[in-house]
């Protein structure tokens, strides 16, 4: 750890005089010499990467260390190792691509998303010749949407019973989650939805059900995801998503859309020139020739799905189209369900930290009128994530519009209608709302203690 590290290290302290002598051995190890002459070997101060990340006590480079641990270079190393490894040591490599990354690549390579998906599948499978499956996180997002819907209705019905808090705040964005844990801690955590993000649901699926089906242990699979931002790398390395039993992460490596482009450039390949491969349909919504999406925008559509479901479940109202009312800026929008002049549901979209800040402020003062808020850290949402491909020549605004157009060109599917997902609830999880479902599809959050740097004030 850096000299300025203030992370407390648990030390077994013997009662007695504080003063002790320290002897340094020839090999550089430290021994504490006690009053009675006995020597105790002192442990080297160590700090886990996750502890380091969670604290903001010093100018740490831990986050950049972590981020370089998960990169396209790391992926190449793993694939190279895998190719030459003994059959018993070899891992099954699975790549899960987010629809936002796919749309960004489609815009850059000037193709439609279906063509992009097929060519990406072919490209990944050719990489190191040991990528075996390429999935689409739209599939796992179906679970996230269904769970969020159910969670909201339950919380709404339990209002006033002291346990669950409203507004429920979206949980799919790790940029928001890490910020919330660090800056608002135990105040804000009760409001955040416990539903896992599509990335992590896919992690549970691949290392759980899929591994079983393949007769493999979870640690025999190397799971890569392609995401529109860097914060997804931090999400993947959360201790909550580490499988203790098999000592493996649910998601081993996250690469950004931009890193995929670097990979292509490294291999000297232009995606549009790649011969398309059939899509892996194991975890997918429709047949091999079709891709589906979810309505409600490029960040997953949480507000829309929860709103429509809640309107039906709680008030028997069928909503087909949603009217968004923009407030002070385009990243803060409201949706209201009214009947006979009474407001039944009030939802909002809050993208970007300025809007998040104002939302939390209102919450703290008890002035928030909302039941649900789709919170995302990036202005304009995931399609504009920090890891997406940057505009090349055209304005970034035009680029974003193009990506949005491509993303929204797909047919949307209602999550309840997905038969594969419904079947998996039974086969894999033993039913909706089961303990297994809770464990696989939900998570928890941890407030980060604010570090107090008593010694080193940096003016």
């Amino acid at each position: 750890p850096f000299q300025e590290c203030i992370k407390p290290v648990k030390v077994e302290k013997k009662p007695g005089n504080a003063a002790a002598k320290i002897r340094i051995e020839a090999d550089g190890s430290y021994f504490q010499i006690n009053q009675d002459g006995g020597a105790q070997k002192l442990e080297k101060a160590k700090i886990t990467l996750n502890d380091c990340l969670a604290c903001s006590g010093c100018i740490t480079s831990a986050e950049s260390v972590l981020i370089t641990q998960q990169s396209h270079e790391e992926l190449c190393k793993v694939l190279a190792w895998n190719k030459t490894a003994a059959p018993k040591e070899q891992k099954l490599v699975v790549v899960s691509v987010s629809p936002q990354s796919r749309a960004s690549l489609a815009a850059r390579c000037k193709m439609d998303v279906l063509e992009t998906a097929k060519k990406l599948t072919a490209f990944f499978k050719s990489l190191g010749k040991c990528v075996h499956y390429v999935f689409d996180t739209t599939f796992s997002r179906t679970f996230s949407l269904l769970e969020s819907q159910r969670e909201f209705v339950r919380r709404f019905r339990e209002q006033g019973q002291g346990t669950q808090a409203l507004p429920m705040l979206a949980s799919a964005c790790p940029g928001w989650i890490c910020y919330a844990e660090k800056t608002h801690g135990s105040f804000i955590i009760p409001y955040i939805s416990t539903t896992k993000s599509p990335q992590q649901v896919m992690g549970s699926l691949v290392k759980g059900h899929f591994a079983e089906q393949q007769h493999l242990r979870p640690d025999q699979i190397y799971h890569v995801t392609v995401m529109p931002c860097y914060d997804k790398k931090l999400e993947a390395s959360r201790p909550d998503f580490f499988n203790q039993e098999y000592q493996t992460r649910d998601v081993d490596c996250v690469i950004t859309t931009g890193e995929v482009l670097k990979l292509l450039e490294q291999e000297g390949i232009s995606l549009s020139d790649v011969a398309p491969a059939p899509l892996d349909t194991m975890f997918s919504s429709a047949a091999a020739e079709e891709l589906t999406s979810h309505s409600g925008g490029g960040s997953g559509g949480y507000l829309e799905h929860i709103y429509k479901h809640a309107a039906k479940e709680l008030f028997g109202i069928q909503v087909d189209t949603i009217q968004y009312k923009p407030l002070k800026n385009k990243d803060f929008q409201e949706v209201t369900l009214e009947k006979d002049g009474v407001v039944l549901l009030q939802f909002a979209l809050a993208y970007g930290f300025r809007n998040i800040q104002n939302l939390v402020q209102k919450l703290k003062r008890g002035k928030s009128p909302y039941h649900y808020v789709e919170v995302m850290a990036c202005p304009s949402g995931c399609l504009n994530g920090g890891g997406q491909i940057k505009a090349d020549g055209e304005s970034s605004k035009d680029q974003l519009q193009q990506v949005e157009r491509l993303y929204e060109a797909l047919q949307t599917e209602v999550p309840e209608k997905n038969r594969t997902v419904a079947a998996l609830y039974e086969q894999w999880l033993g039913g909706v709302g089961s303990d297994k479902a809770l464990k696989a599809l939900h998570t928890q959050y941890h407030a980060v203690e604010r570090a107090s740097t008593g010694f080193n004030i940096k003016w």
Partner: protein
Amino acid sequence: GAGAAVPRPGAPRVPVLVPGLEPRREPAGVLRRGPDCAAVGQGRACVPHPQRGHHPAPPTPGQGWACRAVLGEGHQRTVRRVAWSPCGSYLASASFDATTCIWKKQEDGFECVTTLEGHENEVKSVAWAPSGTLLATCSRDKSVWVWEVDEEEEYECVSVLNSHTQDVKHVVWHPNQELLASASYDDTVKLYQEEEDDWVCCATLEGHESTVWSVAFDRSGERLASCSDDKTVRIWRRYKPGNEEGVACSGTDPTWKCVCNLSGYHTRTIYDVAWCHLTGALATACGDDAIRIFEESSASDPQQ
């Protein structure tokens, strides 16, 4: 040392040191803690300077300063900066506890009307815009936040700017426009203004070789002075598109160019710079225990 430097033709303009202000070895004075002294910040026991043999006489009524308030409950850590609002009724305090408090003057003291939260760690500076409706804060979390206050004294975050790559030390507003400047550990000064429904970084001033600790605009706002750990003060001038001097601009945005580098005068980090709007003189606060005053010599070329 002091002395007038004759500007060579074509050389950057060299301001003159006002003679009489030699670098001093002893600290000029100490904060004295009297019975009703308000030390805003960590109370530190003050030691009378050994070379001073006496304590100043207590202020006679009608003269001197009286401590009116001690605002000890607002922050949990060092208070790093305080700033009066243009109207004088409010005081903002920026703290290492990651919050900024807004205090309102009442008849019998000050009341904390709101606490601005959101920064992830130490807030280094706070500044009010001349209009009085905008406030800027900056932090070790590398961001600059712009806040707006409405008639009901409600503060709202208007923008979170993540342009700097390191700790942001100071924020300063332009004297008469809604243009914001920030100084950072990343060796740059950045400028921000409103564009559509958000604030954007419209200029980055590169040149310093180490942390920029402070910035100051001149009275007109056409020039900016920055001071740094690299022991220099740099003066930057704004050039609008279509300017006579032929300085290139991109589109409709002005360009800022460094027109002077005051190098070799300071022997340690320069922590602060102040530009007098009446006389045009620049004063610097330096880690070598001295204050230096710079004035422009009238013989120099205004474009340098």
